[in-house]
């Protein structure tokens, strides 16, 4: 089974392109691939590559760009296989601590790696990374592990300890609790994003790079939360 998140690059709005179309179609195509079994669990980069190629099969060109983070759980081997392109990412939390996380892929400040399809006249000018450039990791998971997948809107506004605090409140692994926790994390990040005095991770990073900035970073925030549990039919 697979989880994926993609963050559409908002700059396309200025060119009359709906930024959510590319990221949405990318994820829906990944979903289709997984549903139809056209993937290898240990090769999530393959899912990304195939999905991107399928996007190119549209007659009407689908313009836009996005990051992508795919996480695949192999039930038989109890291993999690991940692929990450850009600055979305995942955390694996075990016993209240982060045991695995993705690395951000940035070309330069605020310019993450991204898959894109540009109009022909803009090809070569628009940043377009190959799906092969995605970072790929694999590791074992245990029952009770919490997997959090999110766009940079979360990680730029909420440092790890705050996320872990929220996850501690997760009492059991039923659907409603998980839904509730995911929502509260997203809402909290959203609040912090609009706090002008708050020293967000984004602001901290900017300062480290010589930019005198404070406050959160308003952005779209998507949070996916899942727990490794016993398989029931």
């Amino acid at each position, binding site marked *: 089974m697979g989880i994926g998140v993609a963050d559409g690059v908002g700059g396309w709005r200025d060119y009359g392109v709906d930024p959510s179309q590319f990221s949405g179609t990318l994820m829906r195509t990944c979903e289709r691939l997984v549903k*139809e079994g056209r993937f290898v669990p240990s090769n999530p980069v393959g899912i990304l590559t195939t999905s991107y190629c399928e996007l190119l099969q549209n007659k009407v060109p689908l313009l836009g760009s996005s990051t992508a983070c795919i996480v695949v759980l192999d039930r038989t081997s109890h291993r999690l296989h991940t692929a990450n392109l850009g600055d979305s990412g995942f955390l694996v939390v075990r016993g209240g601590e982060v045991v695995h996380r993705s690395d951000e892929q940035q070309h330069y400040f605020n310019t993450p790696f991204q898959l894109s399809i540009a109009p022909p006249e803009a090809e070569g000018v628009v940043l377009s990374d190959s799906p092969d450039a995605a970072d790929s990791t694999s590791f074992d998971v245990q029952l009770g592990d919490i997997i959090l997948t999110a766009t940079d809107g979360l990680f730029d506004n909420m440092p790890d300890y705050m996320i872990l605090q929220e996850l501690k409140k997760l009492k059991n692994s039923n659907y409603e609790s998980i839904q509730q926790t995911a929502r509260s994390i997203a809402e909290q990040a959203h609040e912090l994003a609009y706090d002008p005095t708050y020293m967000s991770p984004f602001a901290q990073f900017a300062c480290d790079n010589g930019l005198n900035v404070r406050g959160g970073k308003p952005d779209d925030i998507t949070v996916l939360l899942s727990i490794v549990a016993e398989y029931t039919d």
Partner: protein
Amino acid sequence: MSPVFPMLTVLSMFYYICLRRRARTATRGEMMNSRRAIESNNRALPINVEIVQYAKEVLDFSSHYGSENSMSYTMWNLAGIQNVYPSSGDFTQTAVFRTYGTWWDQCPSARLPFKRTPPNFYSQDYVELAFEDPVYPTAVHILETYHPGAVVRVLACSANPYSQNPPAEVRWEVLWSEAPTKVNGPQARQFTPCIKQINFPTNLIRLEVNSSLLDYYTELDAVVLHGVKERPVLSLKTTMIDMNDIDEDEDEEKDGGGMESLNKQFSVAALKEWPTNGYFDKLPYELIQLILSHLTVPDLCRLAQTCKLLYQHCCDPLQYIHLSLQPYWARINDTSLEYLQSRCTLVQWLNLSWTGNRGAISVSGFSRFMKICGSELVRLELACGHFLNETCLEVIAETCVNLQELNLSSCDKLPPQAFNHIAKVGSLKRLILYRTKVEQTALLSILNFCSELQHLSLGSCVMIEDYDLIASMMGAKCKKLRTLDLWRCKNITENGIAELASGCQLLEELDLGWCPTLQSSTGCFTNIARKLPNLQKLFLTANRSVCDTDIEELAANCTHLRQLDILVNTDHQMWSVIWDLLHYCCLQSILSCIVSHCPLEKQAKHFIQQQAVALQKTSKGCQN
């Protein structure tokens, strides 16, 4: 005559009329009542529950629009539940065949049809679907999501594709068949043909389509099979008496397959000898032959049973110079070939497309037939011939020394080494390798030795590694090439195009659809326009780099251009350039210019038609 007879006649007529009326009511209301019929059956026989199934797997098909190994516009999308329906439109998650309309019949690579095609055979493409459980079908729903109306036949097979043992008998039954009819509008619909009841359970359904009346590609989303596990009780209510059914199909069933049974008859029984053949004795031999030349093959076989004279005529090899067995694909097997081989010694055009699968024709059966009948062959159609293997190609290469046309379209089970034998057929003028596994070395060899090649199709040949090399070889060796299909040839670049355009100057048709490695900025399209003035058809399908200059060059140089497939964006400049194209190219022919895949497609066509008509009114005509 006693008064009883008229009375009996009247009574029987009366009874017949009543029966017919009941039958007709059943026919009209049958589709809506079938559920009720099943339900009423339910009350009587509770075990006969109706099962609804979506296709589990797509087993075979003759063509599709999408790329091999893709989920977009490929036939595999027909399996499973619907992805799009009830929405209408052009969606990648649907199943789309390769062609539509009559464009492919009007281009330089169009082929002459076989004569004697039976009037009720319209099929151009097919797809075979397997379902999980064999059932007696009660209904088939076809979910069409764009430009519906292409399905012309639905068939069911008695063999279970998932059974471990090979089937004892493979029988195909036509559940429904109709001539292509124009459907108004491109909107999605659920198509439920009135299928007939069959006496065997099936989980293998075949759809045959004809897209010639469509304005655009038809798109299919899913096929739903309703059926019952237990054989339903046949009653007058559920039996359909359809006038269309009383034709060849039923007769052939009674004959037990037409050709075989009649041949058996002749090998044993003595024909009744008549002292004269009446007026047939007065007709010259050639005239009787001419009359017979209008009969379809099954009729020819039936006619042969009538008397010795006509038997002689019907078995005359001169009647079998052109032989198409594709319409009878469901019934052709080794035995049929055996019975035909004595008559086919002079055959020049042979169509065995779609035949022989699921064990119907064996390699030895085919080889034997070829060895006896192959020497005069000029044209051989073997599309979707999954029974073929390397030996068969070897036999063809050895015996068909005069072969000019070979069609191996969608023979995707042929191993790559089989294609090595084709190079031996030096007389080849037309070679179709669409969707085959031909490899680079074999193809280079073919191009090297078949210098007479005029028509070549390499559409979706995914095993070729370097198309530039292929194009270069073509440019060097295939000087007579007139039509070339490089649809979805993934890695051809401007270098290959340059060599092709320089060497094959007679090219009239070039399909470079979905070749993403061709970029207009390299000047490759301008090169094509300048070097290939005879172009009548140029497909640059889905190439997003085509620009105004390219169109201008085409307008200036390719005055015979009739079919053009380009991706038109909404940029206004493109329209004025197309206007130029219309203006400079020959008016009469440019009317059929197609601007496909355009989001404003209808608008585009309308615009072009309007302008073309306007031009025609004002212009003084032009040189062709």
